[in-house]
């Protein structure tokens, strides 16, 4: 990994340089973090202090994208929410949602407290660490400090600052050099009741030539009322490390706001396969950045999303190449029902010096109701000349010819629609290469389709 760098001036909608954050009118695409982390040797206490000052100074962010898209947190009553550290048991929603399976370890956070940590003793004996981030600073301070917030900003917007200032619990995973682990680690963030502000914070470091899998679950009970998950996630892969990272997010039917920043840094000859499955939340705004930080790094950045009812989903996925040669392959698929709105921006950014980078971005979307909307915006910023970078995508609706075809074989309309939508997501789901996890994602998509059945019927008859 490169040495930490000083924060760069930014013109993000939530830039700390602006007094009235997000209130400007300029039409702009979102900006990559591009190395703008906080990890520069300051202590945790110092960073918390800086973050707290930023939190107090900044207003809730507003994100505007090219004039036609706004993500606003104006209905979020932040003062009414609290970081609840009273939970002591694994929530029911976690027991219901997670598959029975073999695992390398599991850490569960409910609200602001870690309620379960379990690690295969054989892995602990080989030096694997899985614990709360709080405990990591107590027991493995040097290791945790060296990586903490290295590439995550702490004062860019109010909620990133809130996370950096107020986080409790948290997850820390360190897989030492050369350790290869077949079964996945599970990291779970759950919200059980309204009124909670959850500042989830995950730090993962994969040592040289390590190989491992991480499955994150973000879950909430179906409650009435507001809650917040302001998440910060960082994963660093050292030379030759390989990681398959998947994330299943379903915040249920409550008014859960999810404003998260996630960064994955790929070191020399390392590889990451990252697949977030974003399957629900009242308002979700995520910055997902996958960066090739050293020569020979390679990655597959996959993602799927499904929005329903009145959900608002704002995704900014960055495929960042800081140095070459490097490889990238970004492939996202999304569907929307109800009156949900989803906006996906995929940015390929190739920095000066990232020669011999080859990357491709594709985004496919499917509208399942007349009032649903998906905007997909690919953008490419290239500052090197010996590269290939391109993008493609499709926007689709249900294919009535395909539905009739399946009906003529005995499937009813709802089953036919389900086949089409599942078939649409299937290329990505199959890439999870993990049957229990694939089943979780398939079932969640099927449940959402069943819930939207009337809506989908109405759409068909209206055309």
């Amino acid at each position, binding site marked *: 990994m490169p040495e930490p760098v000083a924060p760069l001036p930014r013109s993000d909608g939530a830039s700390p340089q602006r007094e009235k954050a997000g209130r400007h009118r300029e039409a702009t695409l979102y900006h990559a973090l591009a190395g703008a982390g906080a990890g520069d040797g300051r202590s945790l206490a110092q960073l918390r202090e800086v973050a707290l000052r930023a939190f107090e100074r900044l207003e809730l962010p507003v994100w505007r994208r090219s004039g036609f898209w706004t993500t606003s947190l104006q209905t979020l009553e932040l003062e009414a929410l609290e970081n609840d550290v009273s939970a002591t048991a694994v929530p029911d929603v976690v027991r219901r949602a997670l598959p029975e399976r073999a695992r390398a370890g599991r850490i569960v956070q409910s609200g602001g407290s870690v309620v379960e940590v379990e690690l295969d003793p054989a892995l602990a004996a080989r030096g694997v660490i899985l614990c709360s981030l709080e405990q990591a600073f107590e027991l493995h301070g040097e290791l945790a400090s060296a990586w903490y917030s290295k590439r995550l900003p702490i004062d860019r917007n109010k909620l990133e600052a809130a996370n950096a200032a107020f986080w409790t619990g948290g997850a820390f995973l360190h897989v030492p050099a050369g350790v290869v682990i077949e079964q996945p680690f599970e990291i779970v963030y759950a919200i059980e009741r309204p009124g909670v502000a959850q500042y989830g914070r995950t730090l993962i470091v994969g040592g040289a030539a390590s190989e491992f899998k991480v499955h994150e679950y973000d879950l909430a009970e179906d409650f009435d009322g507001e809650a917040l998950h302001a998440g910060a996630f960082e994963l660093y892969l050292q030379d030759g490390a390989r990681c398959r990272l998947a994330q299943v997010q379903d915040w249920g039917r409550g008014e859960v706001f999810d404003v998260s920043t996630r960064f994955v840094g790929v070191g020399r000859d390392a590889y990451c396969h990252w697949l977030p499955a974003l399957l629900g939340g009242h308002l979700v705004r995520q910055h997902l950045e996958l960066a090739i930080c050293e020569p020979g790094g390679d990655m597959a950045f996959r993602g799927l999303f499904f929005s329903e009812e009145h959900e608002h989903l704002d995704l900014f996925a960055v495929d960042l190449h800081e140095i070459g040669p490097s490889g990238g392959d970004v492939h996202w698929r999304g569907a929307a029902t109800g009156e949900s709105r989803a906006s996906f921006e995929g940015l390929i950014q190739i920095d000066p010096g990232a020669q011999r980078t080859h990357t491709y971005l594709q985004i496919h979307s499917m509208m399942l109701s007349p009032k649903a909307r998906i905007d997909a915006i690919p953008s490419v910023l290239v500052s090197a000349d010996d590269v290939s970078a391109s993008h493609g995508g499709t926007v689709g609706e249900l*294919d009535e010819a395909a539905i*009739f*075809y399946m*009906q*003529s*074989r*005995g*499937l*009813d309309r709802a*089953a036919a629609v389900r086949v089409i939508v599942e078939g649409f997501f299937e290329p990505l789901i199959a890439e999870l290469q993990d049957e229990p996890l694939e089943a979780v994602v398939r079932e969640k998509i099927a449940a959402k389709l069943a819930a939207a059945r009337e809506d989908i019927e109405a759409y068909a008859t209206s055309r």
Partner: protein
Amino acid sequence: MADLEIKDLHVRTEDREILRGVDLAIDRGEIHALMGPNGSGKSTLANTLLGHPAYEVTQGSIFFKGEDITEAEPHERAQAGLFLAFQYPVSIPGVSVANFLRMAINAKREEPIQVKEFRTQLQHAIDLLDVDRAFTSRHLNDGFSGGEKKRAEILQMAMLSPDVAILDETDSGLDIDALRTVAEGVQRLHDEQGLGALIITHYQRILHYVQPQFVHILMDGRIVLEGGVELVERLEREGYDQIRQEVGAAVGAGDGDA
């Protein structure tokens, strides 16, 4: 009453009337050929029989096994034992042929089919149609050649064991080998399962491999001539124009493929 009985069927699309009083009766175990020039209403009849929403029945009725299915949903007709082999099969990305077949079979059963039973049936159908085993793990019709698509149609027909199948220009666009495989498949399903079939075709070629007992000629939305296999030979000799003159059907029917 025959298994499939079509009475005085009038059908229109948004802009015009296409079928103008079709009568047809097909029993299990019978092979019928329906021939006609482009635009005569052949595909309209096929799609209407399965309940395609773009076609409106304005008069007449369709009975299947004694039930009036004129207003039935497409999947209800299929579950009752009707089958349509499409002229242009649609691709279903993300779903393998085998998985799709399993879903279709289960759609008309109370209990899902046992894995072993399904495999046996599938193997039998594969042998019958001379397709590669790997074929069934490919996504349905996705990237299939024309011949593969038609084979996949017949494979589905073999697995679903309908009482009456409508083959909508299954022969068009096929080379002679593919045509022979498809035709022999139909013939064997007829011989083994007592399949009743309505083979809709523009050409005579497929009828050299499947022998129809009954031949109907459709022009301008009506059946204008009926007979046995000798009608195919006559058509080969004389062409549609000669027949048109003889039956006095309205001229100018070839205005687009309906």
